[in-house]
C-alpha cells in the first residue's frame, strides 16, 4: 500500500520539480525585466540630463566705457542697469572678427553669445565700478546651440547634417551655420572656450533660453506647496485617525466614514483639482497659480493616505499598553497622548512621508488650478505665483528648443533625488523607531 503511494509520488516528482523551477524562473525573469527597464530609464535620463549641469563660456574682450555703454561711470545703479550692455558685447564680438560686415552675418555672430550675458555683464559692471573705461576679458555664457557642440566636444570641422549630408551619421546636428562653426573653432583654438560646472540650473527660474533656464522657482514652489500640504494634512489626518481608532463608537456612521475614506484614497487626483478650482478659486477667490491653493488641494489628496496609515499604526500598538495606562489611572486623552501616540508615531510619520512624496510628484490636480505657468521670478511667499517640479518637467518637455531635452532630464533627476531622499527617510525612521511586540 505504502509502496504504491511512494511509487505514485516518485512518478510525479520530476514534473513537480519542473513546475517549481518554471515558477521560480518566471519570478526571476519578471524581476530581471523590471530591473532592466528601470536601468534603461534611469540610464537614459542620467545620460541626457548630465550636460545640463555644465555650461560653456566664451572669453571676450569687452570695452566698458561711455562710447560702448552710452552712460558715464558714475551714474546710479538703476541707470547703469539700463545701459547698452548688449551693444558693448556686440561691438566686442565685431572687434574680434573684423571681417564680418554683412548685417545677417553680424546677427549670426552675436547669436553665439547667450542673450542673458548682458544682464550678467550689467551686474559685473555695477559691482566693479573701478573697471569703467577699461577693456576687460570676461567669460560670457554661450548660446544653447554653441554650448551643445562645445560641451560634448564635437569636431567643428565636420559637415552639418543637412542637404547632401542628411544621412551622414557622423555629421553635426546643429542649427548653427558653417560661418558660426568657424567662429566657434577660432574661439576654441585660442583657448577662449571653457566648459564649467554650472550652478545656473539651480539658481535661476524658468527661461525661454535653455542655457539660462533653471529649476529654482519650481523647487521653491514645490517646497511651499509641500509645506502647506504637511501643515494641513498631518494634524487633521492624525486627529481623524485617533478619533476613529481610539474614541469613536463602532456603528453604522463610523463604518460609513471609513468606507468613504478608503474610497477617497482611490479617487483620481484630477478630481481634487476640479474641486480646488470650484471651491478655492471660484468660490473662496483664492489666487490662481498659488502654492497655498496647490497645497490645500494636495492635502485633500494625501489626507486619506495618511489617515489610513495612521490608523494602521495606532492599531499596531498592543491593547496591553492602553490597559496598563488606564489601570494606573490615566484618562482616555492621557492614554492616547502619553502612551499610544508616541508609540505609533514612527508608523504615522512613515505614512506621512510617503503621502507627501506622492504629492510631490503630482501634476494633474495642479493643471486645474493654474500652476502650469511660466515662472521666472522665485516665489517669495505661499501666495506668489509659482509652479512645481513635475509641472516644470512637463513644460520643458513641450518646448521647441532642443537644448531643453537635457534640462527636462536634469529636472527629472532632481525630482527623483527628492523622492529617493523622502522614501529613504521613511525607511530609516521605521528602522530606527519601530518597536515589535
Amino acid at each position, binding site marked *: 500500500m505504502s509502496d504504491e503511494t511512494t511509487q505514485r509520488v516518485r512518478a510525479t516528482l520530476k514534473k513537480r520539480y519542473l513546475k517549481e523551477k518554471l515558477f521560480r524562473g518566471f519570478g526571476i525573469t519578471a524581476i530581471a525585466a523590471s530591473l532592466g527597464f528601470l536601468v534603461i530609464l534611469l540610464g537614459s535620463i542620467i545620460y541626457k540630463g548630465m550636460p545640463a549641469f555644465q555650461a560653456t563660456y566664451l572669453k571676450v574682450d569687452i570695452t566698458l566705457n561711455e562710447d560702448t555703454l552710452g552712460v558715464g561711470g558714475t551714474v546710479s545703479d538703476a541707470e547703469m542697469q539700463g545701459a547698452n550692455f548688449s551693444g558693448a558685447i556686440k561691438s566686442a564680438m565685431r572687434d574680434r572678427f573684423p571681417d564680418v560686415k554683412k548685417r545677417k552675418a553680424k*546677427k549670426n555672430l552675436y547669436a553665439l553669445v547667450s542673450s542673458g550675458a548682458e544682464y550678467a555683464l550689467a551686474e559685473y559692471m555695477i559691482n566693479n565700478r573701478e573697471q569703467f573705461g577699461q577693456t576687460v576679458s570676461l567669460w560670457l555664457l554661450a548660446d544653447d546651440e554653441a554650448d551643445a557642440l562645445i560641451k560634448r566636444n564635437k569636431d567643428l570641422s565636420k559637415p552639418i547634417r543637412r542637404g547632401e549630408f542628411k544621412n551622414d551619421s557622423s555629421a553635426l546636428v546643429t542649427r548653427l551655420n558653417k560661418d558660426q562653426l568657424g567662429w566657434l573653432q577660432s574661439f576654441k583654438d585660442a583657448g577662449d572656450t571653457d566648459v564649467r560646472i554650472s550652478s545656473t540650473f539651480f539658481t535661476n527660474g524658468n527661461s*525661454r533660453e535653455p542655457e539660462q533656464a533653471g529649476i529654482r522657482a519650481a523647487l521653491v514652489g514645490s517646497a511651499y506647496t509641500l509645506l502647506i500640504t504637511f501643515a494641513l494634512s498631518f*494634524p487633521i489626518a492624525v*486627529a481623524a485617525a485617533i478619533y476613529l481608532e481610539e474614541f469613536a463608537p463602532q456603528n453604522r456612521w463610523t463604518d460609513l466614514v471609513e468606507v468613504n475614506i478608503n474610497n477617497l484614497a482611490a479617487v483620481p487626483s484630477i478630481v481634487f483639482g476640479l474641486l480646488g478650482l470650484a471651491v478655492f478659486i471660484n468660490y473662496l477667490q483664492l489666487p*490662481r*497659480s498659488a502654492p497655498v491653493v496647490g497645497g490645500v488641494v494636495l492635502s485633500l489628496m494625501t489626507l486619506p493616505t495618511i489617515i489610513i496609515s495612521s490608523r494602521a499604526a495606532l492599531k499596531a500598538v498592543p491593547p496591553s499598553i492602553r490597559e496598563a495606562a488606564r489601570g494606573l489611572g490615566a484618562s482616555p486623552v492621557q492614554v492616547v497622548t502619553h502612551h499610544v501616540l508616541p508609540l505609533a508615531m514612527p508608523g504615522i510619520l512613515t505614512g506621512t512621508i510617503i503621502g507627501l512624496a506622492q504629492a510631490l510628484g503630482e501634476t494633474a490636480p495642479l493643471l486645474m488650478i493654474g500652476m502650469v505657468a511660466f515662472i521666472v521670478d522665485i516665489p517669495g511667499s505661499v501666495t506668489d505665483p509659482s509652479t512645481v517640479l513635475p509641472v516644470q518637467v512637463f*513644460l520643458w*518637455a513641450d518646448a521647441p528648443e532642443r537644448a531643453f531635452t537635457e534640462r527636462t532630464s536634469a529636472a527629472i533627476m532632481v525630482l527623483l533625488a527628492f523622492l529617493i531622499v523622502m522614501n529613504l527617510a521613511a525607511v530609516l525612521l521605521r528602522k530606527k523607531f519601530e518597536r515589535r511586540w
Partner: protein
Amino acid sequence: MVKHLLLPASLLALSVSSVAQARDYINVVGSSTVYPFATVVAEKFGKSTAFNTPKIESTGSGGGLKLFCAGIGVDTPDITNSSRRIKASEFEQCQENGVSDVIEVLIGFDGIAFANSVDADQFELELKDIFLALAEQVPNPDGSDSLVENPYTLWSEINPDLPAVKIEVLGPPPTSGTRDAFAELAMEGGCQAFDFIKKMKSDDKNQFKAVCHTMREDGAYVEAGENDNLIVQKLQANSDALGIFGFSFLEQNDDIVQSSLIGGFEAEFDAIAEGDYPISRPLYFYVKKQHVGTVPGIEEYLAEFTKEGTWGEDGYLADKGMIPLNEELREETGAAIAALETLEGIEEE
C-alpha cells in the same frame, strides 16, 4: 495638538487677506501656441525693467478667453493670448461681465507645418490632396456629386504624381487649437475645390462643416497628442509618415523634418509672411484696458511687445519662429495700441 491645528487655519486666513491686496505682476493666460512667444517677451520685460516678470499660464485660447471675460478685478487675468480672433459670443460674454474695454493686439502669424522625415522624398501637395487623404467622407472617385467613405489608402491613389506610400499622418487631437486651425485652413481650403461641396456652404452650413472638418478615424490619421516634439520624433523614426505641427518646431528641427510643398510653397519664413503658404493663422492677445493703471506695467509690457526689436522682421520673436506682420500693419497696430484703442464689437462669422 491645538497649536498644530491653529497653524493651517492662520495660513488660510493669511492667504485670504492677501488676495484683497493689489497684484504687482501681470497675469497672462491663454493659447499654448502664443505661449512660447509671449514668454520670451515676458522674460525680457522682467529682466530689463523694474517690474516683476508677468505670470503666463498656458490654458488654450478658449479657456483663456473664458477666464479673461469672467470679470474685472485683480483676481482675473489682465491679458489673454489667442491663436484665433475673439468670437462674437465671447465678446458679448466679456461685455456682460463688465469687461467693456478690450484692446486687441494682432502680433503676427504662425505657420502650421505639414512635414515628413528628411530621409524620405519631399511631398508636393495641393490642399485638395490633403482633404482627400484625411477627410472622413470624400467625393465619389467615379466623379459623381456624392460622398463616400474615404477609400484611399495610398497617396498615389489620390494623385498619380505622389509616391505609392501608405497614407499615415500624425497630428494633434481635437482639443488642440492647431487641429482647429488645420481643419479650417487646410481641410476646408481643400474641400472647396469640389463645387458641389462648396455649394453646401450657402445651402447647409452645418453639413458643409461636417464634411470639410471631420477627419477620418480608420487609422490613416493618427492622433499623436499635444506634444509637437513627440510628433517630430515619430516622424524621424517612421519616414513614411507625415506630421502636422507648429512652424517653430519645424524651424528648430529642420535637420530632421522637411516641410511639404503645399500649392508650390514650403512652410518657410518668407512664404508664410507673404501669405503664399496657405496654412497659417493669426496670433492675437487681448488686454483689459480697465486694468491699465491698476496693475503696474501693462502699458510697458505692450510697449515691449510692439517694439521693432521684438516683433519686427529682425526682432527676437522672429528668431523664435513667429512670422511678423508686414511693416504697414505693424505701424498701424503699434499706433492703435499706444493710444490704447479698444474693440468696438465683433461681427458674427
